[in-house]
């Protein structure tokens, strides 16, 4: 029975331990990828993987990514919700990898909502 080769894990652990400052509850932003059956069938996993790649590539360590079920707008999947600390949550729909990249650069990195792709802000403001 072959187990995952984790020989280098200790080295990476040491490196991460020195540089990472994210503790529970300290995240600046939380991104939820909607992973209901509808979301997954529409490509939510690609969106999630792209997000993880962007976070790793940009060396961001204060953003958490999580998943949730269907948000009730199946025709708008894949969807994500971005919550920046202290700001109302923003839902984005009809996502593609390109759109996700733009939203990541604008909203997560610079803090500007990309209204063109936004479905709703908070629970009252709808685009």
């Amino acid at each position, binding site marked *: *029975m*072959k*187990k*995952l*080769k*984790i020989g*280098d*894990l*200790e080295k*990476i*652990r040491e*490196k*991460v*331990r020195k540089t*990472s400052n*994210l503790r529970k509850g300290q995240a600046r932003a939380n991104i939820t*990828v909607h*992973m*209901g*059956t*509808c979301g*997954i*069938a529409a490509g939510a*996993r690609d969106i*999630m*993987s792209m997000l*993880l790649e962007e*976070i*790793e590539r940009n060396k*961001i*360590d204060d953003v*958490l*990514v*999580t*998943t949730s*079920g*269907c948000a*009730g707008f199946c025709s708008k999947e894949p969807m994500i919700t971005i919550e920046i600390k202290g700001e109302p949550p923003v839902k984005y729909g009809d996502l593609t990898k390109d759109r996700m990249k733009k939203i990541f650069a604008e909203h997560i990195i610079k803090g500007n909502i990309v209204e063109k792709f936004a479905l709703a802000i908070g629970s009252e403001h709808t685009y």
Partner: protein
Amino acid sequence: MQDISLHILDIVENSINAGASLIEVTLDEYLKNNSLSLKIRDNGKGIEKKNIKNILDPFYTTKKGSRIGLGLPLLAQAAEEAGGELKITSSVETGTEITAVFIHDHIDRKPLGDISETLIDLVAAKGLKLDIFYSHNKNGNSFIFDTREIKKELRDVNINNPEILKFLKKRIKESLNEIKEKGD
């Protein structure tokens, strides 16, 4: 769903919603018997007896605010289209076990897809609270990924750290390619 790795992601989301803290996914490819078996077992709250008979009805769900539940019916359809079947056993004491069997070389059998991506996305999203055990056997060549062991090695470092995820994804991909090549 385009492939089996996406079905896994979908069914595991059910387990997460059922409050599971451990999910075991086993993929067995027996080329001698020409069969592919996918088993997903969780320690969640289980399915009540009265609901089991409706579980494969796409217009039946116990989710609040929803009228449909497509995940299991879609997996059942995928198995049946590939000459197989889906079985569910569940109890409120022990959790739920789903087994989907496919004829391996059936023309309509969906490809496995990117298992490493499914595993890493799950670890990234839920890895702090949830443990995942993945076992893949192909013609006697096996691979095991167990987040409980990884967490033990990582000690005070979170398993969902981006650099750790990148490392794990690369390793899972390599290991799966190895058993694929050896098993073919």
